[in-house]
């Protein structure tokens, strides 16, 4: 996937992973893995970026005699998820436009998703 696009999507995914309750790094990865596999090394810059943009805040909890960082979504973070939802409609429209074109040329026929909006 295009790196810029993936970056933005992963940001939203991580925010979604902490939307209902604060979570920590390893759990975010585990919660995401059935939908979006992500590695520790990929998650690190995302968390830093989201923290710098004040989309999430960090607090530390002692766990088994060591420290664990928990990430809490902010109001701004929730806004980002909302704006993703409205962006998505636009993306779906673009997808349909692109697929319509390829259909006409008869190169690709598998328009299998993106229609359930």
């Amino acid at each position: 996937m295009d790196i810029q696009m993936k970056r933005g999507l992963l940001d939203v995914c991580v925010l979604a992973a902490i939307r209902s309750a604060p979570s920590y790094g390893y759990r975010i990865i585990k919660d995401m893995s059935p939908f979006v596999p992500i590695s520790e090394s990929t998650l690190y810059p995302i968390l830093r970026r989201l923290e710098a943009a004040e989309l999430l805040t960090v607090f530390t909890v002692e766990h088994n005699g060591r420290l664990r960082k928990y990430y809490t979504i902010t109001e701004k973070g929730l806004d980002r998820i909302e704006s993703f939802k409205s962006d998505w409609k636009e993306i779906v429209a673009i997808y349909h436009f692109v697929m319509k074109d390829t259909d006409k040329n008869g190169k690709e026929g598998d328009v299998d998703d993106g229609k359930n909006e």
Partner: protein
Amino acid sequence: MMGKMNKAEFLAELRRSLSGMQERDIERSLDYYAEMIDDRVEDGVTEEDAVAGLGDINDCVLQIMAETPPHAVRTVKLKPKRKLRTWEIVLLAVGSPVWVPLALAAAVVALACAITAFALVLSVFAVLYCLVISSAAVVVAGIIEFLTSVAIGEISRGLFILGMGVTAAGLAIISYICAANFTVFAGKTFMRAVKSFKRRREIK
């Protein structure tokens, strides 16, 4: 790629690779990876497998570098916020009989200056407003005196007093304008001073 590493080896290797970065950023990423390894181990993996599961260490380094904003490095260099070293604390403690009274004296002098400035402003106010009030009083007195003088037939004396009254009226108007302008000026200056003080504290 190296062979199987344990947690300590991995973190040491990571620190070596990041050595050009700010210490704060290095610590933060080491904490992150330490937590990740510990969480994997807690999930039932051996330490070596947990480290191996993190993937290529070079990839970890690249990802850390990618999100370290260059401006952060510059800001930190501009404002070195370091902790006091032990000998500095000792020196401060030993020197306290000297610098504490000096600092106190400086504070008192500063306070005295502030009070003096305030008193000066206040006295200017007092002079200007006294002028306004007293001139107004002379105007009123002049009119009354003129009327009584005319009533008893001493017209020349009455005219003289009326002239004084008119002069006083002019003085009253001028001093009133001065007082009003000075009030506005002093108020604005004070507000500006408060604002700039506030801003400086915010930047701090």
